[in-house]
């Protein structure tokens, strides 16, 4: 009897094994696993089946702008340069930058076979301009006088004011852009474009919608049969390798990592280093930008740090802001955030991405090293600590990490400097800024002094952890602080209304050599009183020379050599006046799983950044190839 049983068992096992070997693995949505790239999106959508980019509530990050949409100008994130996607090259403008001729690329077809022409571009831009229900409508009316079709592949744009940065503003620089060209032959027949769901979208990108979850958890995209005529096909001539792309919400952190380690997902958006390290330990196919420590890329163009609301005393006082900087020990901050990983980005506003570090931070090194702050009692203190990279390198090496000793590699990994830690200088500066210390407690204008420090809860670990670390350190230093966690909606409106004192906001950037788009929000003319909603200038930094520079920049072309000089001068002013204390550049742990797909962008093969959630993902897809069986 027992023999028979064991025989039966063996046979069943053999059969099921053979079955597994022969039957092709399928995904839960019924596509062959080896032809399907599964990628994560962060939040399930409440509006399944809604793909119209001009209806509010459409989730663009759910594969919509990464796979379906073509942009006027796309971004080469490695070079930091734009290229025309629908546009053929860059606009040709007249001498005062009010009239612009944009050529349209020939050969792109919509997914229903109709040619994409100037008609579609003109229609889309005018539709935005003329439909008040579309968010960008008001802005388009401010900027554009007219958008007209010259011939099938030429558009003439007239702006109200000189506008030298048409491609930068209406093409992609970071993430994506509001201008997504839609087919005229469909959208012109729709009665109200702001309520049209567009469940079976006709698109110019390389994929179309195959099916979607009515409960909003996933969308399945299929490569166009005529992908050669999609924007990606026409621009590169390369075929996106994955026949299907399944975009999916994965749930909470523990579910996400279990799905990844069990190969049920190929690329994820962003995890914490703790999650990445445990996943790597369980599954050798999982990697991130670097295959070993520090894993993360530091090239995301939004540096994180702490931001001051400068319409209020004493936060409007430069001495006070430097005092806060001296009270913070960056060596502790960096350990608290991501265990020491990340390139320091020790200047306000501009992020130390690799490109920006070469272009701006290294030339500013001398200036930073010699910058001294007057402490008000006849002494001065050095503002920067230029030995940070070496010191943190030694520390992490002592913890058993594999850290290079080469100075250039260290600077690339940890940055050129960090803000100096000097508690005595901090005390003196606080006194200089008008605070008093009695019995170990600080008073300002006779009242006990307390700082409200707010951060965005549940998302953006880097920013949140940084602010909590700062809270921790300022309390230990002796300043009374209150920690305020906020949800996303109150977060945005509190910024705009100026309802904060110190916040973990990140009004930073830096991707192109021309700094105008990063700094134009710091125009002092945009400042509105606290409690009112302005556009830009949440931190209300009032600096006359900085504003002049912004106004000068607005009038010159981004290619003018003067743009770089002005940008440099602006940065020196910002460094000296410290409206923001930068911690790290955007540090992103973006995991990939090479069980089914390989050749993801990485440090060894940096053909692009690991930005699946940006619109340039459709170009990355032409390089991701199936793994050998």
């Amino acid at each position, binding site marked *: 009897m027992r023999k028979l049983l064991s025989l039966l068992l063996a046979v069943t096992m053999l059969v099921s094994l053979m079955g597994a070997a022969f039957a092709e693995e399928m995904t*839960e*949505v*019924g596509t062959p696993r080896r032809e399907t790239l599964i990628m994560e999106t962060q*939040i*399930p*959508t*409440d*509006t399944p089946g*809604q793909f119209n980019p001009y209806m*509010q*509530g459409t989730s663009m990050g759910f594969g919509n702008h990464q796979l379906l949409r073509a942009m006027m100008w796309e971004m080469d994130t490695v070079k930091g340069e734009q290229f025309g996607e629908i546009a053929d090259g860059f606009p040709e403008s007249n001498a005062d930058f009010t009239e612009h001729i944009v050529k349209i690329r020939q050969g792109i077809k919509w997914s229903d076979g109709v040619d994409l022409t100037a008609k579609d571009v003109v229609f889309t831009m005018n539709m935005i301009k003329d439909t*008040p229900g579309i*968010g*960008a409508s*008001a*802005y388009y009316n*401010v900027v554009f006088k007219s958008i007209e079709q010259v011939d099938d592949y030429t558009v003439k744009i007239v702006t109200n004011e000189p506008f030298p940065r048409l491609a930068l503003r209406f093409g992609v620089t970071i993430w994506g852009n*509001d201008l997504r060209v839609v087919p005229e032959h469909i959208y012109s027949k729709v009665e109200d474009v*702001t*309520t049209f769901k567009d469940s079976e979208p006709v698109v110019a990108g390389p994929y179309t919608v195959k*099916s979607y*979850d*009515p*409960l*909003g*958890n*996933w969308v399945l995209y299929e490569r166009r049969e005529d992908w050669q005529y999609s924007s990606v096909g026409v621009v590169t001539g390369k075929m996106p390798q994955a026949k299907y792309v399944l975009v999916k*919400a*994965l*749930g*909470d952190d*523990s*579910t996400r990592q*279990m*799905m990844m380690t*069990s190969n*049920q997902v190929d690329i994820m958006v962003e995890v914490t280093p703790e999650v990445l390290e445990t996943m790597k330990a369980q599954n050798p196919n999982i990697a991130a930008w670097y295959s070993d420590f520090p894993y993360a890329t530091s090239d995301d163009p939004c540096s994180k740090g702490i931001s001051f609301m400068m319409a209020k005393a004493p936060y409007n006082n430069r001495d006070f802001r430097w005092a806060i900087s001296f009270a913070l020990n960056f060596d502790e901050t960096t350990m608290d955030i991501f265990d020491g990983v990340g390139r320091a980005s020790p200047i306000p506003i501009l992020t130390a991405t690799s490109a920006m570090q070469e272009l701006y931070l290294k030339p500013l090194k001398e200036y930073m090293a010699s910058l001294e702050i007057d402490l008000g009692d006849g002494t001065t203190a050095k503002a920067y600590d230029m030995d940070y990279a070496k010191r943190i390198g030694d520390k992490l090496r002592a913890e058993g990490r594999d850290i290079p000793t080469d100075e250039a590699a260290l600077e690339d990994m940890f940055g050129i400097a960090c803000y100096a830690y000097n508690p005595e200088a901090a005390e003196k500066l606080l006194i200089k800024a008008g605070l008093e210390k009695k019995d170990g407690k600080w008073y300002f204008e006779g009242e006990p002094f307390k700082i409200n420090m707010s951060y965005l809860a*549940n*998302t953006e670990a880097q920013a949140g952890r940084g602010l909590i670390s700062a809270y921790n350190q300022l309390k230990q230093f002796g300043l009374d602080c209150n920690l305020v966690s906020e*949800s*996303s*909606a*109150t977060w*945005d*409106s509190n*910024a*705009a*209304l100026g309802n904060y004192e110190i916040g973990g906001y990140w009004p930073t950037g830096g991707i192109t050599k021309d700094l105008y788009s990063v700094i134009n929000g710091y125009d002092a003319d945009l400042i509105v009183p606290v409690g009112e*909603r302005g*556009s830009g200038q949440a931190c209300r930094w009032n600096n006359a020379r900085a504003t002049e520079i912004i106004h000068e920049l607005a009038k010159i072309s981004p290619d003018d050599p003067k743009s770089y000089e002005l940008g440099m001068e602006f940065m020196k002013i910002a460094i000296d006046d410290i409206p923001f204390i930068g911690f790290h550049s955007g540090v992103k742990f973006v995991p990939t799983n090479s069980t089914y797909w390989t050749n993801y962008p990485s440090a060894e093969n940096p053909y692009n950044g690991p930005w699946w959630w940006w619109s340039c993902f459709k170009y990355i897809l032409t390089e991701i190839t199936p793994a050998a069986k």
Partner: protein
Amino acid sequence: MKFRKYFGLRLVTWALTILIGVTFIFFIPRMFPTDPVENMIGQIQSRSGQMDPQEMAALRKSLRVQFGLEGSLWEQYLAYLWRGLLHFDFGPSLVSFPTPAGEIIATYLPYTLFLSLISTLLAWIIGNAIGLLAGFRKNKRSSKILEGIAICIYPVPYFLVALILQIVFAYLLGWFPLQSNINAMGGTAAYLRSLFRASFLPALSQLLVGTGWWIISMKSLSAATAEEDFVQYARFRGLAERRIGASYVMRNSILTQITALAMSLGGAFNGAIMTEIIFSYPGVGALIQKAILQSDYNMILGCITISIVAISTATLIADLIYPFIDPRIRYS
């Protein structure tokens, strides 16, 4: 006649319960300084960049109407009762603007009801059966062990039970999906299969925690009943133990448990929320969680209103069934 009065009274209580609960959640958000319209404008602005002042004023006005914030507090309250309670219209979802929140909730609510009702009922039946045995045979070793297990599982937090089940059965053993994906695109058979697979672990985790409580309470109830005079009398009369258990002890203790079941539905719903979040089960709990993350107040308000209505209605149904089980009820 008496029954009709009982029925009417219960119906009035039901309506009042909903009214009080809904009034309560209408006034809570208005006690806090957060203004949903300002938040909404903030989100629209951060998405689309510049906006001129007139545009903003127009937007603010139209949002105030849509959010039901126009007019005096009293008018707002009446409008809210009228729209929210009678038409389940809670205004647009903030995140999925302009899709109405009620429409989104309607998609997810059936899944929550399905999951929590099934697991609550199962927990009640299994728990009471075990509890009855344990209580009736109080001094048997097996009943002590069962009770011990129940005492140990009952206080474990919901999310923890869910997480452990997920790690063991979905991740290590791979018997069930890690994530509750329900295949609503395929045929009926595929749909039911995926529904079963997706619901099994969430239901099991609620079952484990729920059962513990019923075992404990049923045991002490039936143990007390078993000591009552009429049971002792039945023993003297030489009735079989099994019959005593079934007809005397059970029938008397089960009545208390039915009332308790009706009272426990609210608590079961709390558990459902936590379980749904861990398993990303497509129900109202997960919706609430997402709405919190994105501060979608209309959605939160809608979810809570609907859950209050659903729970009070379930309680009402349990109350109305009660007289059919216990004819002795005095309809009070």
